[in-house]
């Protein structure tokens, strides 16, 4: 791209702009765009940056609550967590880059989301990762798992931010299109929040961080185009992450933020300099002029086009109060980072870009934001799957349990999280393996509970109920550790919005999220959409990943899943109807993916959850929500975590074992309480109108004195044997 490129119809098409969109650009400018302007429009109007297919639907999501300080629209969402502390968080996808180069793709995904959080003045305190891979026996899967996990670890570990929770699942629909969703949670002080609105004219615009190279040009447009067979061949330049520089950038930014020199600040993420400069001007109602000759450059002969579209990592743009440049420069030099004043804000509402003495772009700022196309794409809502499910009622439940515990989806993910430093910062009070991670607010007794959740097979069967379930499960996981769920972030991974069926999944999914978030008072404060997740026409399972954040007033009262004492009564909270449709049991044991997704009664969720949280606040310390795999899997997890056995004595008929043990009814929890307190709790539940049953005791042992899991229809198996099965699959698989 060294010689000036003519803007021909082919060039326009290569930029992913259709005829109508191009005509609109010409109309907005009153002339044909230059190549630089075309590039700028193409990234800003891409699906990734403009949300053109989803914007009208996203408007339906609830985004406010008394504790929400900043909803969607900024770099990250912000909620009040009391005492002048605020929590800043967001999740983002890095799916396509991670498929092409798993290590760097995942690493830069983590780096990008961390910048979104610290650009708002927050110190990141926790990182989470929601991962979906293809089938284990697909030839690429192992390599992708290894690369993605070590990429996430290498970035987070070097940054010194604990990676505390996530998900790791496998399904054939992700064979050619894995999902890597990274979430970052940070803490700031309410009076030290930074925004991206560059208000006022004549203020210096400064560039800080790493130098600009030719990294990831077209990254943003790549994330918006369907994969086909030769995109692996095209091999677009992937970005390489430099966590060391990012760590310096974090410290330098926080140091500068401690002064009052900053008017606005924004990281350079997708579409780098283009999106950061135009969005800052747009939000501030100002204009911006930048001179590309002042941009620190890593390579020679970078064109204006390349500089505007480069996605080099670890860079930030800030607008300072006039006269504060030297002070800021001193800080960035101390941290050995590049610093350059590259322009000024103006009052023209235009973005003007100069290069080598010439104006290479000059456009109204709103042309890139408000004027971006919005589509009301046609959609059809598929009928949700339904019908009776078939299963063999007499199949031995214990054998099935052992098999389930060693399936790719239910096995222990220790192999993953042991590659992440989850203890750094010395505030991880609940570590991976529980329902939600809990990170103490440094220097206080408060804790943030966080988790990521979604069950894509439910979303496929019923996009609306499935999306509700994702929110409900996140809410439940936070509740299960004793947290009050406050707000969510999302990563809406769907397939091609230009196909009415897929668009139908998107629309129903967003409606489901909206309903659940409203009823549970769990608003969405940030997030992102990743569309076009399909390979050769085959879409992924709809995967609206939910990242939840909640608050514990006192981390000493946190609950964990591990059984803690022998002789405790095991209580089951919630209704068990034995819903086997779309369950893991049906898929793994019967080989069937059929039936309706479990219905989610949000009022019931709330009632049961509030009841459980109340008990935790009153001292109950052992709680687990019931999710994938059902009740028996949950009991096994509690036994394995505590190294203590259990006996289940069901008052139910023999032909109902399977639905009782493996059904995936929602709104349920298990807890273990001292036996002497069980009756009082059951009475309390009755009063609150919450279904609760005493289903067994902890502490079962065999005649050798070993802890066992046993019960009606369950011949005893030692907890050690359960654990061995549960821990074996992933490390064995990764050995190859």
């Amino acid at each position, binding site marked *: 791209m060294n010689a000036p490129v003519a803007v021909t119809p082919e060039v326009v098409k290569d930029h992913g702009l259709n005829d109508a969109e191009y005509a609109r650009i010409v109309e907005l400018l009153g002339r044909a765009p230059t190549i630089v302007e075309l590039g700028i429009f193409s990234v800003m109007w891409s699906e990734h940056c403009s949300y053109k297919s989803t914007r009208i639907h996203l408007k339906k999501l609830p985004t406010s609550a008394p504790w929400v300080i900043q909803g969607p629209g900024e770099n990250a969402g912000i909620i009040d967590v009391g005492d002048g502390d605020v929590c800043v968080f967001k999740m983002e996808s890095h799916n396509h880059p991670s498929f092409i180069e798993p290590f760097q793709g995942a690493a830069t995904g983590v780096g990008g989301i961390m910048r979104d959080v610290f650009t708002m003045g927050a110190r990141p305190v926790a990182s989470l990762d929601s991962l979906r891979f293809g089938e284990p026996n697909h030839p690429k899967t192992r390599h992708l798992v290894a690369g993605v996990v070590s990429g996430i670890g290498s970035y987070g*570990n070097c940054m*010194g931010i604990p990676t505390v929770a996530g998900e790791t699942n496998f399904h054939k629909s992700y064979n050619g299109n894995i999902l890597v969703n990274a979430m970052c949670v940070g803490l700031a002080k309410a009076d030290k929040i930074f925004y991206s609105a560059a208000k006022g004219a004549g203020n210096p615009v400064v560039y800080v961080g790493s130098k600009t190279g030719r990294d990831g040009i077209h990254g943003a447009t790549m994330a918006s185009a369907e994969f086909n067979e030769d995109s692996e061949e095209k091999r677009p330049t992937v970005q390489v992450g430099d966590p060391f*520089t990012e760590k*310096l950038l974090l410290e330098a930014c926080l140091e500068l933020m401690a002064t009052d020199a900053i008017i606005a600040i924004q990281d350079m993420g997708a579409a780098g300099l283009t999106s950061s400069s135009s969005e800052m001007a747009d939000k501030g109602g100002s204009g911006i002029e930048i001179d590309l000759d002042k941009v620190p450059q890593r390579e020679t002969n970078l064109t204006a086009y390349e500089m505007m579209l480069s996605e080099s990592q670890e860079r930030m743009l800030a607008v300072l109060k006039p006269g504060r440049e030297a002070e800021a420069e001193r800080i960035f030099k101390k941290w050995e980072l590049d610093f350059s004043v590259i322009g000024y804000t103006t009052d023209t509402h235009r973005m003007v870009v100069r290069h080598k003495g010439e104006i290479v772009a000059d456009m109204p700022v709103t042309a890139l934001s408000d004027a971006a196309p919005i589509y009301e794409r046609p959609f059809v809502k598929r009928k949700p799957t339904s019908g009776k499910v078939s299963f063999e009622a007499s199949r031995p439940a214990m054998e099935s349990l052992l098999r389930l515990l060693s399936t790719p989806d239910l096995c222990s993910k220790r192999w993953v999280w*042991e590659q992440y430093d989850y*203890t*750094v*910062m010395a505030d991880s*009070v609940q570590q991976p393996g529980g329902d939600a991670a809990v990170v*103490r607010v440094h220097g206080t007794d408060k804790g943030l509970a966080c988790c990521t959740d979604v069950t894509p097979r439910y979303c496929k069967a019923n996009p609306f109920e499935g999306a509700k379930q994702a929110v409900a499960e996140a809410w439940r996981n936070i509740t299960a550790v004793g947290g009050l769920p406050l707000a969510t972030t999302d990563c809406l991974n769907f397939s091609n919005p230009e196909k009415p069926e897929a668009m139908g999944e998107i629309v129903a999914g967003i409606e489901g999220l909206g309903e659940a978030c409203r009823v549970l008072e769990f608003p969405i404060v940030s997030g992102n959409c990743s569309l076009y997740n399909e390979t050769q026409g085959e879409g992924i399972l709809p995967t609206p990943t939910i990242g939840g954040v909640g608050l514990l007033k006192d981390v000493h009262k946190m609950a964990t899943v591990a059984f803690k004492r022998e002789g405790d009564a095991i209580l089951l909270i919630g209704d068990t109807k034995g819903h086997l449709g779309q369950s893991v049991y049906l898929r793994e044991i019967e080989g069937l993916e059929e039936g309706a997704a479990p219905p989610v009664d949000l009022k019931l969720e709330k009632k049961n959850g509030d009841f459980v949280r109340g008990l935790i606040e009153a001292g109950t310390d052992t709680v687990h929500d019931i999710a994938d795999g059902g009740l028996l899997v949950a009991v096994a997890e509690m036994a394995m975590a505590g190294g203590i056995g259990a006996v289940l004595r069901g008052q139910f008929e023999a032909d109902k074992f399977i639905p009782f043990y493996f059904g995936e009814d929602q709104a349920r929890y298990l807890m273990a309480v001292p036996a002497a307190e069980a009756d009082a709790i059951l009475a309390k539940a009755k009063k609150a109108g919450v279904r609760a049953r005493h289903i067994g005791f902890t502490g079962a042992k065999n005649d050798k004195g070993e802890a066992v899991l046993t019960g009606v229809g369950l011949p005893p198996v030692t907890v050690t044997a359960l654990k061995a099965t549960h821990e074996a699959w992933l490390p064995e698989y990764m050995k190859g």
Partner: protein
Amino acid sequence: MKSAVVVFPASNCDRDAAVALEQITGTKPVMVWHADSEVPDVDLIVLPGGFSYGDYLRCGAMAGQSNIMRAVKEKSEQGVKVLGICNGFQVLTETHMLPGVLMKNAHLKFVCRPQALEVIETQSVFTRKYQAGQRVVFPVAHGEGNYVADDETLDRLEGEGRVVFKYAPGENPNGSARDIAGILNEKRNVLGLMPHPERVCDPLLGGTDGKAMFEGLIEALG
């Protein structure tokens, strides 16, 4: 006891170390920047964990060449106690203040987990509050903790009672020679170890086994 924590670019356990020290000693340690060339007058210098300089080239290599390490070395020669944790241990071997090197973990992956250790040597200012043979659990979190030295060095370390911590038998997380987790220098005033005692000084974080190290230091150093 007066203490200092050295901060390198991309140190990331500097705060953890400072919090543990403050909690136990009651006074805030002095934070010393890597580009400084002097260490204030203290009784204990901590080289914290992290990824100094991104751990690029070799872990600890670039930090080992920093201004401040010249000063730390001098102080240690005067008898000031130096505690290198994780990346700090790597820096100590890179500056030859401790023998041997820390190579990539034998399985080539980063490993983070609670790690059972055996206290081998209690004749040191760092371990005097532990019992010989005591089992403790400290977290490990490193990609390069595989201690390597020639047999002669290893024999000497063991013979002179300078191996203070070993990974519990059968639980070596990184392939380290003779299960070595932490060693002393000849003068016994410099300790390097891979596991993180500063992350287990609070029952909420999974234990308090690390506390005795800092309590021992206070007892000895006042």
